[in-house]
């Protein structure tokens, strides 16, 4: 157990240092979310207000979830990098805890997601977002967002285990990202989608997470949205972790 903690913290520290020294990581963790927040507010705020959709209040939660997906996409890149440079093989030939590389990656992405949450929510509050459901709900807001980042990190990390190069891993990871974020409640209400798409939009995990965040900030029913999101996270984390273990064994044997 102490080996797991020690090895994981050493590797998590490395992963965080790597991100911190990579300008692209900083951009995707901080700058892109802020640009999205600013530009969507600028372009869509009035249009959406006419529909009874308060962008200043609702958009930051969308952008937080979007930033969590960026964290997942960077996981795809870094996992592929470790695999293709032989770092993964080297780590697996060391007498370290078997779970530590994956766990370290997950911790680093959780840390990165905290930074994104702080920046987006900070700017969101400055531009009119309010947390009206109390301090516990606000803390829950952060936890749900981090849990979503961890889920994305594990899921998109799988792409990093199979993609031929780190750059193709980053590109491939953007394929699930776009439909999931666009076909969600994030930018437009579920009712505005074509009827045949609405069941998908309503039930998919990204909508679930965005709705949960909005509820925790004071807009919506906390217990149903958070329950659904936690269930999505538990199921996906279990599936993605099992697949990671399998694919990692295969990845180092090539």
């Amino acid at each position: 157990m102490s080996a797991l903690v020690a090895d994981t913290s050493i590797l998590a520290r490395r992963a965080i240092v790597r991100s911190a020294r990579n300008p692209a990581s900083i951009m995707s963790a901080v700058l892109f979310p802020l640009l999205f927040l600013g530009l969507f507010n600028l372009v869509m705020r009035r249009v959406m207000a006419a529909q009874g959709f308060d962008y200043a209040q609702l958009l930051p939660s969308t952008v937080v979830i979007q930033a969590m997906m960026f964290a997942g996409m960077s996981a795809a890149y870094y996992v592929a990098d470790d695999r293709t440079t032989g770092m993964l093989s080297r780590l697996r030939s060391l007498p370290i805890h078997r779970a530590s590389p994956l766990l370290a990656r997950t911790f680093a992405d959780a840390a990165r997601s905290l930074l994104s949450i702080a920046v987006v929510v900070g700017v969101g509050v400055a531009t009119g977002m309010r947390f009206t459901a109390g301090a516990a709900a606000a803390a829950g807001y952060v936890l749900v967002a981090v849990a979503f980042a961890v889920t994305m990190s594990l899921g998109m990390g799988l792409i990093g285990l199979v993609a031929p190069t780190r750059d193709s891993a980053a590109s491939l990871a953007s394929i699930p990202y776009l439909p999931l974020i666009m076909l969600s409640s994030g930018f437009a209400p579920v009712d505005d989608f074509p009827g045949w798409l609405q069941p998908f939009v309503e039930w998919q995990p990204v909508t679930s997470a965005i709705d949960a965040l909005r509820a925790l900030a004071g807009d919506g029913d906390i217990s149903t949205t958070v329950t659904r999101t936690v269930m999505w996270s538990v199921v996906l984390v279990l599936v993605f972790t099992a697949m990671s273990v399998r694919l990692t064994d295969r990845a180092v044997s090539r």
Partner: protein
Amino acid sequence: MNEPDVAQNSAGGGVRVEALTKSFGEVHALAGVTFEARPGTVLGLLGPNGAGKTTTVEILATLVQPDSGTATIAGHSVVDEPDAVRERIALTGQFAAVDEVLTGRENLEMFARLRGLGRGEAAARADLLLDQFSLAEAGERRSGTYSGGMRRRLDIAASLVVPPAVLFLDEPTTGLDPRSRAEVWEAVRELRDGGLTVILTTQYLEEADQLADDIVVLNHGRIVASGTPAELKGQLGATSCAVTLVDAAQLPSVAERLQAFGETTVDAETGSVTVANAGADELVSIVTALGEAGVAVADVSLRQPTLDDVFFALTEDSSPIEATDTESVGAS
């Protein structure tokens, strides 16, 4: 290097491989391989792409499970006691697996910490290794800025943060320029002299010749020859005499004339004729004969048989090297 540790670790730090097989789907990467590396020696695994060298190393480094056969490191089975094996080995893979974003020092300290050294110990060890591998001045720079040879040296240094019983070097000089290659060779020689057991894979015959105490030649997952470099060269025997002409147009006639001294082969590219099984006496006769015939000679030399000769002689019955490319997916 920390000499007492090495001596302690290398006692019984041998590698035994018996009847090892491994297939990836239809591809038989290893079809029954048996060899032994004695403690404190360098064993060269030599062969073309897809011969099974990397698969062998991956099995020995506990990354891949064999289909059948046994492999032990210092008496510990790689299948049944992977943790004991991992405590005793270090893997330097085909790519220099160091973190480009971290400095040389940070890389070494990280690997030292992962091997259980405390912060202070790890820093001291990093100092020592940076010094030993001539990286002291570059220690505070990110390894991404290093030359290929420097990165390889850092890579090898990272394998030595805790002196292993057995070090695996998988094609350590592939892609390096000649100068970097020489630097890496020097580092490997020092390790061997320090008592480490090294398993070295290479496609370069010269590299195996320079570094290995024993050589195992692999092709298509099978051992086609093994022995010391001298023994392998002995299989081909005598020296040959190579004559380079000033005027390449004379090659055919000269080749015919020199048939009297032994079997001749013409290399149009270098403009030379080689006489097989020719020693110093024949060389003198050849030069005399050419002088009498008025042939202008640019160079005359005696050639020792190289491992290349041995290698091509051993593998010429198999399908050409290019044909093994399909295999390299699984086996290389």
